[in-house]
């Protein structure tokens, strides 16, 4: 089967217990700025977008998940891997 290219977006986020100072700072600055009290929650993370070859969407997801685990792209003690989207290019 011919492989296709997929564009896949992931985020690496800190687990709540490890705290998220970036998000905390944003929330604090928002409060200070006023007018943004409609924002109730903020989480931050690292964003990566990859283009890779795979057989299908499921395969692409699997490749990325395996790769992130094997390379420790995220530190499992404090971070989680979140696949945001997979699309055929």
């Amino acid at each position, binding site marked *: 089967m011919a492989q296709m290219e997929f564009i896949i977006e992931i985020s690496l986020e800190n687990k709540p217990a490890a705290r998220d*100072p970036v998000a905390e700072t944003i929330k604090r600055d928002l409060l200070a700025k006023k007018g943004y009290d409609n924002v109730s929650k903020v989480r931050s993370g690292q964003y990566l977008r990859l283009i890779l070859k795979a057989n299908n969407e499921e395969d692409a997801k699997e490749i990325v998940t395996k790769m992130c685990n094997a390379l420790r792209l995220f530190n499992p*003690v404090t971070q989680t891997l979140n696949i945001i989207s997979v699309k055929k290019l």
Partner: protein
Amino acid sequence: MTIKIAVIQFPGANCDLDAVHVLRNVVGVDTSLVWHNHFKEANFDGVILPGGFSFGDYLRAGIIAAHSPALDEARIMLKDGRPILGICNGFQILIEAEFLPGALLQNESLKFVCKWVNIKVINNRTAFTHKMKKDDVLAIPIAHGEGRYYTDNLKELEENDQIVFKYSTEDGSFKSEANPTGTLENIAGICNIEQNCVGLMPHPERASESILSPKQTTHGRIFFESMIDFIKRRLT
């Protein structure tokens, strides 16, 4: 018997020459600066992973260097009990390579911080601290942006006596103002269960000569002297 120490030069490391200077010229031990791809454990009695910014610390401090072949070599040394010290970025690499448990997160302030602090010796039985006394307070500088230690298993760390240093005030108390980064429990350095591998955020190589210390102390030297002593004992 001559003792040979390796300082690994990872791409982007920048305290490598500093460590070599202190080992060679201050401590007086035979030291080689070894490019990370060329490192062969068999030639060395101990290894130091220096501070700096390996691979720019891009993505996360230490993560790319943790995949260097140098770590496979170092793992052999870890297993057979030879001493391994990770200073700052070296500590981050040891964490990411899973020589040591936990994680080093961005400082709470989100800022890099460079200053002289005090650390208290919690475990003085490791390869790098056995010439220190428990509860000694050492003057030593830090310089990092990602040094907030975190573990989801603090209890185990404590039970195994793996906490080696904690930030403290000059008189040894663990007040929160003595904590420069928001690190868990003031933790500044830890070791593996076997105690031959130590990682810490502060820079002993910057605290080894009185000319560089605000109070003319040389506390950093004891790390390296402990290591030499540890190696000698192992070899005899």
